[in-house]
């Protein structure tokens, strides 16, 4: 390089004279991996059987259910958030809670759409509230946590329906009251355990109160569910 500069010839002028003769042996192995599916498997799941896809998502949902039932301060729910679980729970709860047609006896019960709207709209409002107060959690993570923590209340709904089959007197009411109260406190406690770390420290009560109200209202809807005759 220095010699070229010093001689003030145009750069690389001498390279045109160089030619590679064909009898220079080139050695080595160039092998393209034929089994390229091993790299593809990490990115495209198009080729796997449908059963695998569904089971993988179901396993993820089930794992999160376990996390909700035994709430410890873990970030598993936050890291891989998904909204399948909340959708499943919401639809189950709304189907079980809904009233029939307008003229029948169940016209006092909430309609399917009302329950659905309360759960999703309520979650959105609570998430907005959290973010406005300065929380560092993302929008969908918060929706995911709030939706998954409805699981104890859905379990309570199933238990209540079973209890109501036995009768609707005072004893069944007391049993249902205890079950619903326990499950709604469980829900609130579980969601607080997951959401606690992302809140500014002197506003924790401001964030927890709407969550408490949300699960309280859903608990009231479950408790006042009356069977049709």
């Amino acid at each position, binding site marked *: 390089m220095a010699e070229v500069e010093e001689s003030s010839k145009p750069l690389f002028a001498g390279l045109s004279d160089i030619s590679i003769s064909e009898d220079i042996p080139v050695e080595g192995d160039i092998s393209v991996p034929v089994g390229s599916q091993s790299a593809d498997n990490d990115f495209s799941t198009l080729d796997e059987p449908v059963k695998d896809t569904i089971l993988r998502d179901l396993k993820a949902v089930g794992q999160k259910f376990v996390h909700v039932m035994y709430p410890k301060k873990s970030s598993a729910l936050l890291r891989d958030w998904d909204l399948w679980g909340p959708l499943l729970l919401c639809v189950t709860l709304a189907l079980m809670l809904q009233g029939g047609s307008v003229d029948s*006896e169940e016209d006092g*019960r*909430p309609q399917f759409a009302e329950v659905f709207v309360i759960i999703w709209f309520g979650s959105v409002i609570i998430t907005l*509230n959290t973010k406005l*107060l300065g929380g560092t959690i993302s929008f969908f993570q918060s929706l995911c946590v709030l939706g998954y923590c409805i699981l104890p209340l859905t379990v309570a709904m199933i238990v209540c329906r079973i209890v109501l089959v036995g009768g609707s007197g005072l004893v069944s009411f007391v049993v249902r009251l205890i079950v619903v109260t326990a499950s709604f406190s469980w829900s609130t406690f579980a969601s607080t355990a997951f959401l606690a770390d992302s809140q500014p420290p002197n506003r924790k*009560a*401001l964030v927890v109160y709407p969550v408490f109200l949300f699960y*309280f209202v859903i608990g009231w809807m479950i408790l006042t569910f009356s069977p049709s005759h």
Partner: protein
Amino acid sequence: MATPDDLTFQEFEEAADLLSSNPGASTLSISSPGAAASSGEVRLDLSDDEDKQQESSELLGGEKQTGGFWTFEYYQSFFNVDTMQVLDRIKGSVMPLPGRNFVKHHIRNNPDLYGPFWICVTLVFSVAISGDLYTFLIKMGDPEFHYRPQFNKVSIAAVTVFLYAWLVPLGVWGFLTWRQSVERHISGYTFLETVCVYGYSLFIYIPTSILWTIPVYWFEWLLMAIALVISGSVLVMTFWPAVRDDTRLTAFATMAVIVSLHALLAVGFKLYFFETPKSTGSPHSGQQTTPAANHTLAVGKH
């Protein structure tokens, strides 16, 4: 010999550099030979003063509106309260001491939307749930009564409360601002402060509605009177200083309108959600109270 010349030359350069980087800086002309060291100190002092002045202007600035209304930070500035502040404001609305203006004493240039919004939501659900419970307790002895949760009452309660909590402050604020523009010596409140006062004044209705489930006739009306007095006095003590400089007729008329709207809300709640059924015990006794509810809605819509 060249040293003092060099020093003065350097001082000029440093000052020129300082001026070019910060054109608004105040300059001092120092002509002593030891100027290099002191100009360094002066430079540090200037920058410190500048920071302090900026900080204090931010602290003294009243309504800090960061960004336009399409940014998230704009709305975040309305939720800039801590737990203790919200609890303190609620306490101030429940125990109004005479002479303590709620806006000046508790809100103090930091109106928030957290309190009004969540108090309204809680009020909606507490009125609906307590009303349901009350109907159940009243009709428990009736053998042909079959309990049905009146879920549609939640929607009606929600519409009423939110209309009241937003439209009435809008009207009051508009009226006060108009009077302020007509007569200069009246002090008004911003819209958010008005919404804040109304929101926090509704708090007393939450325990009132829970206690209304006790179906004892005179107790219910006693509770209503107490709640009206407390929340009405919060409103009166807030808005009286704003209208007292006006003509006596306008001042009293404004106060009367504010108090009567508040009373209408309370009476409407009581009559619609906590209706005492007539002796026939029919579940459709809501018919004759719907005019009262409609009247409340119509007034609230003004």
